């Protein structure tokens, strides 16, 4: 944490645990007998209970979206650039609720939790979860927290898919849906990348069919590889070029462009070890991730992505899924996102229009690829901020 808490930070936060003893029947037909959800909140719920805003996290996210857990934290929550007093998701105006979805590995019940039936780690026995299951659990959390409706549900990527599911499944409970850098369902290419990630985990000798925790180990190499592949898909070619293209060699001075081929030690080693900065960066990202993330959770999260398809109940027609939705939508996409490109967001917009829904859509110019949704890109932040300011103003004018 910085020496003093920045004025636009939510500051020190303490997660809370909500226990649910009522069984949850999942999309797969399996039943989760009981579970816990770990939750953080920022800001205050107003007397009319009209200012609650739900954050849905993406693949590797969790409940810790903003602020710091302790003074020793080197970094704030994963969406601190957007959440805080005076920020786009303004905690002076909204009561922000952020949870770790079950199946996760940051405190909510997941594969690394103890299965009450066996008193061992769930591991591979944890049921496969879907976006719909998460939203069902979020719906229960909402009741437990005595929140009658969300002023807005907000999420990017896999989080954006949860936003869509909220709008489809729970009309009357969501007034505004903000869906950023998402897709109506995964493409074959998306699924292919996920499968490479999964295969690298499951083929690691330390995976032990998912029971690695019982053996006191974890598939470090597999997780690293999975994250390295994933990380490439989150960045754009241009983002990598600028990140790893800072140095300019003599013969490149005219163009001042080395295509992101910065060398780690200033020269080629003619060996099979790391030569380029991008390689060592990916190794570092993979290594750091593997130490903090559960491999079984990674498998579940990627499966939830693959399975997401809200049209299954609607004859394959997404517009029919939105027939009963009664919220206003804001969608945003980023120009260099090749994981969920703008065309995918435009598909959703078209189906919302077909269903007669109220929708706004922005295509943000940004070099950072899919990762852009986590970054403070001025036009993106201004748009999100402007939209949510209106949500707040509507709240105020509706107040008795």
């Amino acid at each position, binding site marked *: 944490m910085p020496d003093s808490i920045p004025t636009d930070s939510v500051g020190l936060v303490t997660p809370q645990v909500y226990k649910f003893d009522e069984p949850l029947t999942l999309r797969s037909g399996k039943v989760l007998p009981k579970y816990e959800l770990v939750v953080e909140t920022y800001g205050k719920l107003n007397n009319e209970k009209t200012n609650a805003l739900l954050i849905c996290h993406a693949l590797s996210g969790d409940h810790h979206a903003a602020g710091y857990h302790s003074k020793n934290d080197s970094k704030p929550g994963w969406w601190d650039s957007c959440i805080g007093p005076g920020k786009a998701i303004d905690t002076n105006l909204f009561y922000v609720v952020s949870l770790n979805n079950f199946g996760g590995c940051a405190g909510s019940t997941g594969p690394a939790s103890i299965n009450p039936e066996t008193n061992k780690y769930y591991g591979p026995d944890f049921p496969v979860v879907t976006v719909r299951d998460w939203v069902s659990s979020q719906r229960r959390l909402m009741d437990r927290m005595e929140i009658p409706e969300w002023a807005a549900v907000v999420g990017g990527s896999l989080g954006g898919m949860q936003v869509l599911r909220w709008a489809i499944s729970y009309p009357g409970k969501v007034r505004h849906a903000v869906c950023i850098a998402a897709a109506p369902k995964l493409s074959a290419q998306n699924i292919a990348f996920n499968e490479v990630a999964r295969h690298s985990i499951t083929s690691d000798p330390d995976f032990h069919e998912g029971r690695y925790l019982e053996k006191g180990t974890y598939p470090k190499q597999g997780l690293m590889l999975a994250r390295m592949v994933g990380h490439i898909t989150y960045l754009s070619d241009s983002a990598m070029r600028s990140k790893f293209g800072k140095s300019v060699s003599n013969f490149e001075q005219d163009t001042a462009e080395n295509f992101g081929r910065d060398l780690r030690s200033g020269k080629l080693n003619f060996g099979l070890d790391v030569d380029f900065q991008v390689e060592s960066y990916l190794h570092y990202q993979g290594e750091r991730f593997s130490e903090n993330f559960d491999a079984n959770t990674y498998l579940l999260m990627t499966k939830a992505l693959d399975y997401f398809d809200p049209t299954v109940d609607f004859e394959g027609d997404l517009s029919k899924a939105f027939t009963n939705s009664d919220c*206003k939508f*804001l969608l945003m996409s980023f120009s260099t996102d090749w994981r969920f490109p703008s065309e995918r967001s*435009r598909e959703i*917009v*078209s189906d919302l*229009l*077909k269903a*007669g829904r*109220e*929708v*706004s*859509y*922005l*295509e943000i110019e940004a070099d950072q690829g899919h990762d852009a949704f986590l970054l403070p890109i001025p*036009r993106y932040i*201004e*748009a999100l901020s*402007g*939209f949510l*300011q*209106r949500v707040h*103003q*509507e709240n105020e004018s509706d107040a008795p």
Partner: protein
Amino acid sequence: MRPDLEIIQQWIQPNSKVLDLGCGDGSLLHYLQTTKNVHGIGLEIDETNIQHCLDRGTNVIEQNLDKGLSNFQSGSFDTVLLAQTLQALSKPDHLIDEMLRIGKNGIVTFPNFGNWKSRLYLASRGRMPVSKFIPHSWYNTPNIHFCTVKDFDALCTERDIKVLARTVVDLEHQGSWYMRAWPNFLGEIAIYHISKNTD
């Protein structure tokens, strides 16, 4: 509000669905939302305008009109608006067809190139007219398809489009009996209310 918008709004029914092509800063849609309970969506490409729309709570979609409107269903809106944008489109005739596919009726406004000032400018100077209203030179203008009131009338006849109402105004958006008498000569801005001919 811009006076041409003042005229347009009279042709829009309360509680109707309106699609505004090139909605600018969303002021007309916002006015219609608040005074007529209209359900509106605007299309716009200018980033600043889009932000203005979000700030005032008007639905806005970032979409280039020249790339078509195939994402809109037939008959999904009551009125489709095209205010002061016709002349900047690459295929204006195609867009008008699309307007009348998507909406039950359409409203089009455009600068009338048949106005006496344009005629005088071209006749006396022999150069493309540049004025306060059309402040661009021929090479850098976004306005690539100017037309006159007579041209537009001809297009409507050719495409079997019914003109429900037509009015012309000057740059201050004032109408007068002499403009009504000689619209193509005196009108500076033409405002059309059109629909498909269903007779």
